[in-house]
Each structure stands twice: as structure tokens, then as C-alpha cells.
């Protein structure tokens, strides 16, 4: 579920430019909710109103209220930050680690490549969520440790792509030219190799973010993510389970939020991948 290694297969002909822009628009809204949640609602997401618990959607509460009388719309808006920040943080960490290890594997010669590749194999040999479970068991329950665990899951995929890209770009004329001009190896890596490999990796990261968000919400759902009363989408779903017999809305809207966020990242990422593919052909 969390393997970012898989470059999700792409249709050969570009369609769905509209889908891309809808996705981007949704991501912009999400980003706004992450940074300025107060723009979207005046309601305090943690304000428990004991007199209006489990109210269905209405003009006062657009998406209804939960078992503690908290406004679900406000909780989804304020929940964007804790829900997305683990996935984002894990992706950034995984990217950083992937770039370092991938570049090193490509540049350190055969022995270095072998060692790094085996390390990556070990990480890859443990199925995604179980690796996170292991990390959480070692470091303890909490958002930070979940982020570290997810980063380790994503790292090998990035490292491999970076390694392949660096090797590909290394053969390019301008790099050979730079080396021929007597530039230092390190400078060449930083000035030329890395920036040229960034495009494909950025696209991969965008698609990977989707699966990272699913994984992080799964962790919250089973209680290994941010702790209540933090409004987090997976945790909201988990809290809604007992009340499903009385109310569907607390179990439906946070799930929709996760699905749409993942969908937006996937659509945008795939579009970027296609664009890069076409350019590199």
C-alpha cells in the first residue's frame, strides 16, 4: 500500500487535462486548509457541545456533528494539517534520504553501490505497514515516530529512481563537458546531476504522497498516529465506528476527505509523470 517504488502505469496518450486542473485546484484548497484553517470556518474543531451530539448535516453544521457534538466540517478542515503533515513529512524525509543514498549509490563505485543496494533491499523486504509497526514498536506511539517509519518505507523507491536518473544523466553531454572542463566531481553532482533528476522524482513523490496519506490515516485509524482530541481524518473515522448504528455522517465525510486528497495527489502526479515522459522522449 505504501510502496512508492511502483511508478503507477500511465496511459500512453495524454487525456484528462481537466482532471489535472481540478486536482490542482483541490490541492490548493487543501494547502490553504493546512496553513489557514480559520479561513474556512469560524467553528472551533474541539468545541464539544453536549447538547447537540450526532446531529445530521444542517445549515448550522454543514456535515453534522460527532458523538461529542463537535462540528465535523470544522474538524475535517482543521484535520487537514495533522492528516497531511505525516504523509508530507514522511515524503520529504524519504526524498532527502533517497537523494543522498541514490546519488551515493550511483557515484561511489561498485562496492558502495552494492552495499547501499543491499540496505535498500532489506528495507524493501519488510512489507510497508509492518516496517512502520516495527519502528513504532521500537520508538513508541506518536506522530513523529509514524513519520519516521513511513519515511523508511518510501526511501528505497526514491533512492532507486535517483540512482537510475543520476546514472542516466551522467552520460549526458553537458556533464561530460563539465567534467572535461575540470570541474570538481561534487560540484558537478550538485550543479547538474541532481537538478536534472529532480523532475521525475518530483512526479513520483506526488503520486507517492497519495499512498503515504492512506498509510498514515490507516495508522491513525488503529490508534498509532496523532492522539485525540487532535482532529485527524483516520482517527475521526475510528471514533465514528461505535456510532455507525445511529449516524452515518461521522463515518462518511472524513473518509471522503482522505479519498479526495489521495485522488488529487495521484491525478496530479500522474499528469506530471506523463509530461516528463513526453519531454524526455
Amino acid at each position: 500500500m505504501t510502496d512508492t517504488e511502483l511508478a503507477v502505469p500511465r496511459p500512453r496518450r495524454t487525456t484528462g487535462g481537466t482532471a489535472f486542473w481540478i486536482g490542482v485546484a483541490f490541492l490548493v484548497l487543501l494547502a490553504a486548509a493546512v496553513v489557514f484553517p480559520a479561513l474556512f470556518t469560524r467553528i472551533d474543531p474541539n468545541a464539544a457541545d453536549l447538547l447537540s451530539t450526532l446531529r445530521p448535516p444542517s445549515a448550522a453544521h454543514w456535515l453534522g456533528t460527532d458523538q461529542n457534538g463537535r462540528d465535523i466540517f470544522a474538524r475535517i478542515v482543521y484535520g487537514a494539517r495533522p492528516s497531511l503533515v505525516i504523509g508530507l513529512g514522511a515524503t520529504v524525509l524519504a526524498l532527502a534520504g533517497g537523494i543522498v543514498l541514490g546519488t551515493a549509490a550511483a557515484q561511489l563505485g561498485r562496492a558502495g553501490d552494492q552495499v547501499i543496494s543491499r540496505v535498500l533491499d532489506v528495507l524493501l523486504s519488510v512489507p510497508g505497514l509492518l516496517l512502520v509497526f516495527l519502528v513504532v514498536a521500537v520508538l513508541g506511539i506518536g506522530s513523529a515516530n509514524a513519520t519516521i517509519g513511513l519515511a523508511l518505507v518510501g526511501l528505497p523507491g526514491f533512492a532507486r529512481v535517483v540512482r537510475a536518473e543520476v546514472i542516466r544523466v551522467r552520460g549526458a553531454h553537458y556533464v561530460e563537458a563539465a567534467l572535461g572542463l575540470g570541474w570538481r566531481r561534487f560540484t558537478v553532482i550538485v550543479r547538474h546531476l541532481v537538478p536534472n533528476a529532480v523532475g521525475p522524482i518530483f512526479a513520483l513523490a506526488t503520486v507517492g504522497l497519495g499512498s503515504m496519506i492512506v498509510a498514515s490515516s490507516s495508522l491513525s485509524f488503529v490508534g498509532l498516529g496523532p492522539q485525540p482530541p487532535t482532529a485527524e481524518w483516520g482517527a475521526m473515522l475510528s471514533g465514528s465506528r461505535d456510532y455507525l448504528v445511529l449516524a452515518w455522517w461521522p463515518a462518511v465525510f472524513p473518509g471522503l476527505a482522505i479519498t479526495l486528497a489521495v485522488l488529487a495527489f495521484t491525478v496530479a502526479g500522474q499528469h506530471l509523470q506523463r509530461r516528463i515522459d513526453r519531454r524526455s522522449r
Partner: protein
Amino acid sequence: MRVPAIACVVLALTALVSSCAPGQAGSADHGPPRPGGTLRLAIQKEPECLDPHQSPTEAAGTLARPIVDSLVSQDATGGIHPWLAIGWTISPDQLTYTFALRQGVRFSDGTPFDSAAVVANLEHVVAPATKSLLAANLIAAFSSAAAIDPLTVEVRLSRRASSLLGALATPYLGMESPRTLGGSASDLCTRIVGTGPFISDGGYAQQSGINYRRNPDYAWPPYGAGHDGPARLDGITVQVAPDNAARFGALSSGQVDAITAISPVNARVLKSTPGFVLYSKQMPGSNYSYWPNTERGPLSDPLVRKAFRSGVDWAQIVRNVYFGVYEPAHGVLSPTTPGYDASLEAGTAYDPAEAARLLDQAGWTGRDAEGYRTKNGQRLTLRHMWSDAGITDVAVQVQAAARQLGIQTVEENLDGGTYVDRILKGDYELTDTNFSAPGPEVLQVLYASANIPNPERGLNNNMARYDNPAVDADFDQAMQTTDQAARLAHYDDAQRQLTEDAAVFPLYTTVDTVAARDGVQDVEFDAGALPGFYDTWLAS
């Protein structure tokens, strides 16, 4: 008119072995009990280990009870009755108990139940290899046991312990076949053999459950049972389903006949659904409570504790979260515990003005930017370690109420290891749990200074870290006497002091529930409120 669950519980108090079925109005009269059929039961919590000598959990007690009988049984008022022991005498110094055993009792593996078996069981409970968490504490005063003749056994104590008989009545000191006790601890965790009304051939499988079949030779039910002879059911199949919604779904869809631990919201739904009954019993022992760390931190100040108790509307929170299925609690003990002092309830009413006054008096007069009270620049912050994620909704509401008082609670849902670690170190301000036990002796378990958990002593149950020599003296004196009235007087004094000191913030009285389809008849609860199925029968 539906009879609400709580009314049923009040009725149950007067019964010796309580059993009640607040059915739907006009629910059919099912006629006389008839034998046969298999009860399909889904339970919430699974024991890590089936052997009640090893595992202290309610789940282990519930699943072991059909298999193991006890020497004596206890009724809801604390009275002790014969069971596998038909009588007993206590020596004048109260250090020697001599039990006369029932004749003709056999374990289901054919081993006769005799004095040697009793000795083997008690020694198994206290053996270090058993790693007993609870059972050994129940008979901490145990010194030795000896078989006088095949049907007479003598138990010697190192000090007076009037709680012995009550402890012997629990499944945690139930009688298992001595032939199995010699095996490995982990074998006993899956399969136990007893003299009880049911037999489990396959034993308990983690996460899937356990199957029982009727013991055809059973002829020694406890005092107060509804019938004689073998159990009425052919068998019971038990599945484990921790998720409340799924368990309820399994009941409402007819996948199972009965479920334990129905969640309050589902209980509310159940009451308005025809064709189902709710059996329930308020558990004796301590209420589900928040426990303050009285040893250090802001809550070591009795003024702050009293302020927290009167400044949070605990009863309203319970009514909101639990839909009236759980009764708000007001005492140190649950109202169904023998010796409960109801007169102390008045002192714990909700009074936010008084709470504010007490906090001012305690010196928490400053306010920071977020509106929390401060003292010497320090914010009044209480870290609440959860014992169970089920406390989420209550915690959210208590947090909101505390904020009104200017107190910040930090909610911490920790892994088991860290939780235990911090309990041992006393590194918390609040935690929460309940502790069910049949009698007021539970107060000693929860508040005796000798039971404060620490790294040297290990895990123990005085999580309030309460240390009061006067209360300790009460406990000692109660243990010294077998006179019931005198014992209860000591426990009454302890309740008074604990209430005055605000050593605990009671939330609600835990209710043990079995929700069932209409045809499931006569589910009973024992003195510890564990459900039993010996009398149970299926009308349809």
C-alpha cells in the same frame, strides 16, 4: 413500557445470585426451561492467557468460569456459601482454615477432586513459575496447605486475612485438575481442566475463541443456582470480536445469540429494537474513575484535587457519553459493593464556584495567554495517561470541562510498556481505570501505602499513590477480624477519609452486560459480576 437496565440492577441487589432480564414489554413467556442447543457468544476482550491462576483479567475469569469451580461461592451481599467445600472452620487465632470437601466430585479428565488437588492448586497459584499477577495477591497471607485426609484440607496463613474466603470464591483461585498443573505455563494458557459444568476440549485459541461442551457428570452447582445437574446448554461457542460495532452487528444480524460488553450507544439502540434482551449487573468494587497522583505534582495538593472533583460535572459527562446506560458514580466504592456508604455521596456535588475558590486558595491565581491558571509562572497542567482508548470520549469532555476551570489536561494514549514504566515511576498526574472485586477489601488493594507501584516493588494497584497511615490502620484492623459488621465499620471509615481527601474522581459504575436475542434465557452474574451460563437455556 420497557424496564430500564438500571432498575433491573437495583432489583438484582436483593437477589442472592442475581439474574435479571429486562425484556421487551409483552415478550413471550417461554415456558419452563428446556435443555439443549448451543449458545453462540461474542466477547469483547480476550485474555492473554486462559488460566485464571496466571491471568488477572476479567476476560480470563469469564472464560474460565464455565470450566472451573471454586471451594466456596459468594453472594451479592458478601455472604459466603459452600461449593466444592461443604463446610469450614476457622481456628481461634484465625490463622488456620479447615475445609471439608464435597464427596464424589471429579475433574473432567477423571481425576478425583480431593484434598491433594486443593493443595496442588493453592501451591500452583503461589508458585513463582506461575507468574501470577493477581491470584497470588489474593492470598498474599497464604503460608501453607496440607491434606489432613482425602476430604479435609487445612490452609495456614502467615497473618490474619479475613479476605481469604472471598478470594477463594473468585475464578482466579478456581480448582484445576492437578494432572494439568504440572505442565508448562503456556499449555495451561490455552487449555485448562476443571470440575465445572462445561468442558473445553480444544481450549482457547488467541483471537478466535473457545468452544465448550456440557459436562454430563456435573452435579455440584454453587449455592443459589437455578437448577441441579448438568448445564442446560449442549455447548457454548465463543468468538472474540473487539470492535463494538462489529460485535453488535453480529448480534443484530443473528450471527451470534449473545454478546458481552455492549457499548452504551448500542445498548440504547437495542432497547428500541424488538426481539432482544439486555442482561446487566453493576459491578462491585471500585467505580470507573480518574485517579490523581496524590504523591507529587499539582494533584498532591488536596485543595486542587477537591477543586477538580467539584469543578467538573462528572455526572453530566457520564450521562452524555453513555446515554444513561451507565450510572454516574459518587463514591469510592461502587454502590453494589457490600459495605458501600451512600451517605458520603452528598459531599461530592458539582460546584464550579467552589472549585474556583479552592484553586485560588491553593495559589493558582495567575492566568496565562491561553486562559489557563498559573502559579509562579507555571501553568496548571495535568497529564492524563489513558489505560484504555475506550476513555476517548470521556477524556474529550473532561478536557473541555477542565479548560473552563483554567486547568489544561494533556491526553496521553501510551503503549503498554511505557504506561507501566510511568506508573512505576509515578510520572503522571491522572490515569483512569476501574477495578472490580466482590468486596470492600478492594480498598486495601487500591489505597494501602504498601501497594503504591514503584520500580522495586513492581506493578501494583495504588495508582493514586495514596499514603495515609490512618487508612492503612483501618485496612489492617479489618483484616484482623472475621466479624462482618466490625470489618465493614473499618472500611466505612476508610471510605470517609478517602472521600474527604478526594483520593479518587469517580466517573460511573461499571456495568457488566450480556445482550442477547429474545430466546436466550437465564443468564446469571456471580458476585464479581462475571456472567455465567450454567442456568442459561435457549427458548428458540
